[in-house]
């Protein structure tokens, strides 16, 4: 009964601890795992990321020279980042935003120069 009293009184007379998101945004931790970026320069469309993705979120189309990445399936584990032989995938510290439509990202590669 009275044991909670000091706490609530202290709370009542001090500033709330609430983070005022979305008006004030806290910078994410440097280690935070967010959405993926594919570097079309480095990637050679080997497909390793697709094979090791536990969520089946990456589809590499070697012929069509596209990578389809589905942020709504991705579990942000970073397995692909670590597994990519070319280090072509980087992970943002910002999470991918909510959306009204779930659209896959299609990353198109310039035609092969070989």
């Amino acid at each position, binding site marked *: 009964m009275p044991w909670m009293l000091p706490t609530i009184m202290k709370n009542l007379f001090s500033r709330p601890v609430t983070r005022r998101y979305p008006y004030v945004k806290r910078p994410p931790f440097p280690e935070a795992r967010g959405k993926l970026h594919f570097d079309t320069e480095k990637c050679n469309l080997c497909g390793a990321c697709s094979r090791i993705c536990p*969520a089946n979120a990456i589809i590499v189309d070697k012929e069509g020279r596209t990578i389809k990445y589905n942020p709504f399936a991705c579990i942000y584990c970073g397995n692909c980042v670590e597994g990519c032989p070319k280090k072509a995938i980087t992970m943002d510290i910002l999470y991918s935003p909510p959306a009204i439509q779930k659209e896959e990202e299609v990353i198109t590669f310039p035609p092969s120069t070989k």
Partner: protein
Amino acid sequence: MNWIARSRAKSPWLLHYDCGSCNGCDIEILACLTPLYDIERFGIVNMGNPKHADILLVTGPANHPNYRVLKNLYEQMPEPKVVVVVGSCGCTGGVFHNCPNILGGIDKVIPVDVYVPGCAAKPEAIIDGVVLALEKLKNGK
């Protein structure tokens, strides 16, 4: 009318249903209620009862034993109502995409208005998602 739209946007009440999630997103939803995120700032209250709710927050993928319950809850919510799916597995099946008991994303069962990706979705992302949903609510859907 303006008043109504405004009030709708200012007073969204939640119903949360866990359809087969791993708990990760559920506890992040609960975390949104707590002092650090405090979504009651936006008038959001977690109601726990479909008849009082405006927003249905669903976590987890749709699975066979559970989709019927989800449907029932959705039907018991009065209009206007919106559905927000939280978490990658609810959006598409995510990491559970090849589990035998899974139907797939929640949109296989009920119409979904907002998708919040992430595994687990961060509280910030959930707030963003709800804010998106409010736009829909405002217009009476």
